């Protein structure tokens, strides 16, 4: 069980700015026909996800499906109860609970809230009823599952071959997209845990990015200063995944 230091805090902007930059809800739901979307949302309850909250343990029964609106969740694979790797990141573009689409009520990955904020939540049984009732919902979520599986495969190859610096840049960009902000708080222990590398490796990579003025990082506060340059440092995995999502979910 993970019990070590783990800190990522989304920095909330002043309410006025936050409202201006708030995402338009969940993109999976936004793409549904009006009738289907309204019916599903009527059965959802709004919840606030707390930082570091474990929404589901590996092997545990799935009680709820979550559609993040401005929160985000890491999907984590583990070995030997001590080593980890993030294999998926779910924000307002996705959902947590895809196993239910496959007729399986047990989660295969740990789901850890990495960015606090609102989400819509629906009971698993209700969700399955809606899924049966709404072919457009089924179709859209199946496509998302395809995206998620591709992301998973890509993470496997990326973790194997790409250098820490490139993976760090990719991770920062993916997180930025889901935090809807260029600023978030995180510790190097957390990053090492997500990327499955030693802390010293993260420290080195982060200080290189810092020296090149792509990021600012102090006291656990991460700020992306130059996203274009960060994209150039990142492996292809960041843009590939984003483009794939757009292509499949369009």
């Amino acid at each position, binding site marked *: 069980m993970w019990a070590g230091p783990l800190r990522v805090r989304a920095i909330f902007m002043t309410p006025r700015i936050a409202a201006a930059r708030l995402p338009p809800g969940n993109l999976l739901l936004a793409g549904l026909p009006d009738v289907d979307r309204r019916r599903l949302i009527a059965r959802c309850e709004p919840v606030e996800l707390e930082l570091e909250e474990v929404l589901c343990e590996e092997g545990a029964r799935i009680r709820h499906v979550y559609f993040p609106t401005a929160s985000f969740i890491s*999907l984590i*694979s*583990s*070995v*030997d109860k001590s*080593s*980890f*790797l993030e*294999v998926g990141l779910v924000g307002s573009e996705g959902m947590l609970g895809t*196993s239910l*689409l*496959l*007729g*399986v009520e047990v989660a*295969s*990955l740990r789901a850890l809230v990495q960015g606090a904020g609102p989400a819509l939540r629906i009971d698993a049984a209700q969700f399955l009823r809606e899924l049966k009732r709404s072919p457009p919902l089924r*179709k859209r979520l*199946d*496509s998302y*599952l*395809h995206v998620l*599986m*591709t992301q*998973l*495969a*890509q*993470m*496997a*190859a*990326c*973790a*194997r*071959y*790409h250098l820490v610096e490139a993976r760090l840049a990719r991770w920062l960009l993916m997180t930025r997209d889901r935090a809807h902000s260029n600023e978030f708080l995180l510790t190097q222990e957390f990053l090492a845990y997500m990327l*499955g590398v030693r802390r010293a490796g993260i420290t080195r990579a982060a200080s290189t990015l810092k020296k090149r003025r792509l990021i600012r990082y102090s006291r656990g506060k991460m700020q992306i200063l130059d996203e274009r340059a960060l994209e150039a440092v990142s*492996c*292809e995995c960041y843009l590939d995944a984003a483009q*794939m999502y757009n292509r*499949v979910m369009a």
Partner: protein
Amino acid sequence: MPGIAFPQQNHILDALPPDERGRVFPHLKLVTLPLGAVLYEAGDALRHIYFPTDSIVSLLYVLEDGSSTEICVVGNDGAIGVALFMGGETTTSRAIVQSAGSAYRLTGRRLKQEFERQGETMHILLRYTQALITQMAQTAVCNRHHTVDQQLARWLLLSLDRLSVNTLSMTQELIADMLGVRREGVTDAAGKLQRLGVITYSRGTITVLDRKRLESLSCECYSVVKRETDRLLPARSVH
């Protein structure tokens, strides 16, 4: 190894109830898969789903620079082409034959028709997809944290489970490609297993002599994947 192939050698086809067999089996086409053949490349349009009987197919994720890593291995336990029923019209991985043999294939159109009936074909393929997801996630974290020795043991066990024999025809280059490591790494790891009397390796044929020992040398990833596959898929009927 020519022999009489029949659809029930594949666990998924075997699990179908009689009425679904009646609809699906007449449309299955038996194909021979030679070692190293590429069933599809990443980005190809998916036209068929394959159900291996005595062959093994690896799915590889290929990066821009051409380096690749195996994300899952499919044999008589499963099917290749699950993206077909998730609305993915193109593939995102490379499917390459890792152990020669046969497979039954079905056109995407037929598969979709059967899927729309929402019977056992759909349910079992969906559950199989979940087993694949587990295998992919476990492989990702295994790649990151475990030694080549452990990974080779895991890989041999997963492959052999899908063959129902103790022998695998395989070159070290291919294994290195699958595991995404250098060939010397595989040579070293295979050499260790051979000195321990766990396998013999000669002229591209690997024979497992001591399976229990091989299991103890593997990382936990083998048993995690096996347990999940067993849990999600029906027990085999006896032939």
